[in-house]
């Protein structure tokens, strides 16, 4: 490899390389900011990510392999890059006032957030299992720290260490899984694996499948599916809300990006071998997430279980993927649902952040009583989010679920679709309970008025309803993003 090639590859990955450098710059800037001015990092981080979005969009249409095929620039990676950077931007917007208010204004938040985003972006473009592993760690390690950001609050510390311990444990399985796959194929490059599998020169298909299964464990941990979900409620509750909002979207999206890259692209034979396993995992996840959520009174925990449940819904497409001719459609449905979920989830967390008070107060369902009378706008927005979570028209959540179920049914998994439908009926129970509290109970909720949080809630709510109408173009976009690389 020559210097020219090296520089050319760097520009192929420009959004990524640029953001890493920007994070390094932020690191230095942080050193020279006095403690009470750390908030300045927020606009800087946002600026960096906004530029990143611009750079990513400039890449639209490109399709290149960089660094000897370690990373790819293709429709999928660009789509994911924009999604991740958008998630980062909202993460900053939600945190700015929140951190100040909670006395958590530390420069680390923004820097770690940017680093985590770089990890996610790498995940989106990874074309080699080495990259998958590095990206996984690069996005996770900042998240472990972020979860414990509110130290010395015990809940936050506990969340951090639990997340870290479980995360490290799970990545142990990923590494071992990659080792087995490497051992059976002699390469870690995803196209290399694909060609080895298709040429039938696998050392031992059984061990190869075990390796894939172990990777599924690690990635399943990241997206929080049963039985690898146990960390989720605790970490979501313990971590500062702004962090949770960011993490619940970013990590999930990245996890699914990796699942799609690895299971769907690299290991298609495993994907079909593992179909019964994923079937059961998806079903269990939907059932457990939705049922246990009913018993939750703490809104953060409720959203945590909700996030588990939605991971189950998205996982359904990986079941359906095995059926011939559905690959692109399945992946597109997953991406679409991911976007719908991200919008909904961010909106809901914005409302949570607006109502949260110091020392973890303002997080119970009771604290939402009377929101409808006191703050109509926020309550209506929250209602839209809850409806979208449930999958009631006319929200994007409904359209997303529709696509998902459609793929699943077309794949012939009627029972799985049925479980999905029934569990989403169950979910109506706890989602609408939030609405009931807001509109049908009396109370005097105090709401923190912050323009960025309000903006997030308003824009996502409006988007969820308005985009319903443009569902087809959106879906087309998702499909094109997929088809470009597949």
């Amino acid at each position, binding site marked *: 490899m020559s210097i020219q090639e090296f520089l050319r590859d760097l520009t192929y990955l420009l959004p990524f390389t640029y953001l890493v450098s920007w994070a390094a710059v932020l690191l230095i800037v942080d050193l020279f900011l006095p403690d009470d001015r750390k908030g300045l990092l927020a606009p800087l981080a946002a600026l960096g990510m906004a530029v990143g979005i611009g750079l990513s969009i400039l890449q639209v249409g490109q399709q290149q392999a960089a660094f000897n095929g370690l990373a790819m620039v293709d429709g999928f990676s660009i789509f994911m890059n924009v999604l991740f950077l958008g998630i980062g931007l909202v993460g900053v917007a939600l945190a700015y006032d929140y951190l100040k208010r909670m006395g958590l204004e530390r420069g680390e938040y923004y820097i770690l957030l940017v680093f985590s985003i770089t990890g996610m972006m790498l995940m989106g473009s990874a074309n080699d299992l080495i990259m998958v592993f590095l990206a996984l760690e690069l996005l996770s390690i900042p998240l472990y720290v972020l979860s414990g950001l509110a130290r010395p609050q015990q809940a936050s510390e506990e969340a951090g260490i639990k997340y870290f311990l479980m995360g490290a444990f799970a990545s142990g399985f990923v590494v071992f899984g990659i080792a087995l796959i490497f051992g059976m194929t002699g390469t870690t490059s995803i196209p290399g694996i694909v060609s080895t599998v298709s040429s039938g020169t696998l050392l031992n298909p059984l061990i190869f499948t075990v390796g894939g299964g172990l990777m599924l464990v690690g990635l399943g941990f990241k997206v929080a599916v049963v039985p690898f979900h146990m960390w989720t409620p605790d970490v979501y509750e313990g971590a500062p809300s702004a962090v949770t909002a960011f993490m619940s979207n970013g990590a999930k999206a990245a996890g699914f990006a990796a699942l799609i890259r690895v299971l769907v692209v690299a290991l298609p034979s495993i994907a079909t071998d593992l179909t019964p396993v994923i079937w059961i995992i998806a079903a269990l996840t939907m059932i457990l997430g939705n049922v246990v959520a009913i018993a939750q009174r703490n809104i953060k925990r409720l959203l945590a279980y909700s996030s588990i449940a939605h991971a189950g819904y998205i996982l359904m497409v990986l079941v359906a993927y095995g059926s011939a001719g559905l690959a692109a459609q399945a992946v597109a449905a997953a991406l679409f649902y991911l976007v719908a979920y991200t919008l909904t989830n961010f909106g809901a967390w914005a409302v949570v952040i607006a109502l949260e008070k110091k020392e973890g107060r303002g997080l119970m369902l009771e604290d939402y009583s009377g929101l409808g009378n006191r703050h109509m706008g926020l309550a209506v927005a929250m209602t839209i989010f809850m409806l979208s979570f449930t999958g009631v028209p006319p929200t994007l959540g409904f359209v997303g679920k529709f696509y998902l179920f459609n793929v699943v049914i077309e794949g012939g998994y009627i029972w799985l679709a049925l479980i999905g*439908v029934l569990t989403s009926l169950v979910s109506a129970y706890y989602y609408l309970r939030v609405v009931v509290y807001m509109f049908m109970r009396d109370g005097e909720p105090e709401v923190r008025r912050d323009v960025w949080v309000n903006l997030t809630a308003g824009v996502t709510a409006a988007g969820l309803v308005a985009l319903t109408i443009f569902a087809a173009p959106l879906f087309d976009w998702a499909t094109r993003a997929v088809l470009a690389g597949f």
Partner: protein
Amino acid sequence: MLSETATVGGIFSLAPLVVFIPLAGMIFNMLFGGRLSQKLVGGIASAASGLTFVIAVLLGVALYNQHGEPVVVPFLEWIHIGAFQVDWAFRVDTLSVTMMLVVAGVGTLIHVYSVGYMHEDVIHQGDPSRFRRFFVFMNLFIAMMMILVIGDSYLMLFVGWEGVGLCSYLLIGFWYEKGENGIGNAIAGNKAFIVNRIGDVGMLLAMFTLFWVFGTLTFDEVFELAPEIAATTPAYIGLITLFMLVGVTGKSAQIPLYVWLPDAMAGPTPVSALIHAATMVTAGVYLIARSAPLYTLVPESQNVVALVGGLTAFFAATIAVGQNDIKKVLAYSTVSQLGFMVAAVGMGAFVAGMFHLVSHAFFKALLFLASGSVIQGMERGHHLEHHAHEHDLKPRKKKSKEPPFDPQDMRNMGGLAGRMRTTYWVYIVGALALAGIPPLSGFFSKDEILLEASHLNTTVYILLTIAAFFTAFYMGRQVWMVFLGQPRSAAAEKAEESPAVMTLPLIILAVLAFFGGLLNLPGPHTFGHWLEYTFEAFHLEMETLPFSLPVALISTLLAVVGILLAWMFYGRQPLEKGQEDPLRGILGWIFTGMQRKWWVDEIYHFLFVNPYIQLSHVFAEYVDWRFWHDWFHEVVLAGSFNQFARFLNFRIDAGIIDRIANGLGNGTQQIAGQMRQIQTGYVRNYALSLFLGVVLIVGYILLR
């Protein structure tokens, strides 16, 4: 074809407005309504509804001009997956236009009426700020109902189906903090919601099967393919139509899911009139009529539908006889009349069913609105009475001991005819129409159903005829108890007529209820021919039966006998204050059964809710793996001991019939509460869960 494409650009391009005008009204009131006067808010909402009606009329005229040729107005592409696509398209044909006219027409009258009604209601209930909310919901309802009837695919229909359900739920719980123990209304809303959810599962299953079998959800395409599929595997169509029937029993309150509708009367009276009598509950009838090309392919399903309708008509009519709440009588009457319609469309008499739907919308909306007028008249009387005695009431503070005054209880009424003349006369018109006395609208529409039934299905015919007799009887009973005789309470003595904004819509509706029969007189069959355009498009032959004198005579005779009987019991010797219902002496336990709604709620509670709760406990015991408790510390062990104790201690909480909804909720809550205990908080426990997952996956792969 040329004319069709030409006209799509013309008046038909207005079709989307029927959805967007009420939506605009809703949004306007939501944004600015807070700063406007009540009259303006109500006026805007009514205007939105009225404008929708005008559009519907225009569409109807345009449709007539091109001889009923159905038109599909594409609006937006919505969902495209591979070959599968669903668009926002609006289907204008005679069937949908009929529904639009009914919804918007009756809806507008009810909007106007509500301006007067809600003005007083919000004062009475003590929260004037909800005036605006009411009209926001009402406009939303109109929009959703329009989506339901004008949609070009089952998916859009379903969107509207869910939307109107949501509005219904919101409006039943409109005074959510009122009702029995302060939660009565909320529970009623919950019950409606959950029972409808059961129906929705049916709808969803129907749609899944539809999509699975046909690969499309658009009406045209489905109906095009249907005969082919029926030829090879009729079971598919049977399954689809039966699943749909489950949805219909939920939304249109048929056996066995009708239990929510009487409770839904907790909503404000205009809501009962619009949603729970005239429009939303008829969505099921519309669905079957719309799916006529499917139903006619499977006679077995048709029989089931007809039987369900007939049974419901009969069963609910008997219950209505025993009710003392003015609105409950009408509610059960609605269930019964919906049974007529479902039976009709079930037998394949789509025109008769739709005709009855229209005339029923007129007279039942009229009756409900008039009953609202009665109730408020009573409240005004109560208020006057209360004020008149205020000063001499002060010394004795026994007020709390008396049961609260119930302005809806017919036993408190009597003699209102003199004090509320307009209401009385329009009520008489409505009651006669419902009883089926010629030449009012109810006679013609009901007669047509009976006529068809006498040819198609004798069982149903007998059931419906008996139901018709009961109908006349309970309406007679009601009129005598409410309006004639002597006042049985102080409030009834002082009752006052309602303002013109309320009585005017009543009069218009009374005229419609009186002359509505002209739509489809036995000879010309105008309405029948109008609807035939829609059905003919799918090659369905609609044969018109000739008028049959015996059928008409029998039903009229029975109606007259019913009214006479009512007069014998309640008219000849009017009820005294506190007097037992004379029927109790004659019928004994049968009357108790009628009054107690044949214990259906109790039976449901016993059959479903209790076992469900029990089962959930047993299930929870197993789900809550012992393993976890053994593995970890006493906290969890102690927890499981407590659960076990709770399980043993659980007592059968009979008697809370109306908490079916809550029962279901609690059961699920219990499971959830048990399952959350798995989440012990110990990291090592979590690691173990993860590890077990790994072992299971790897084990599966290796041992497969």
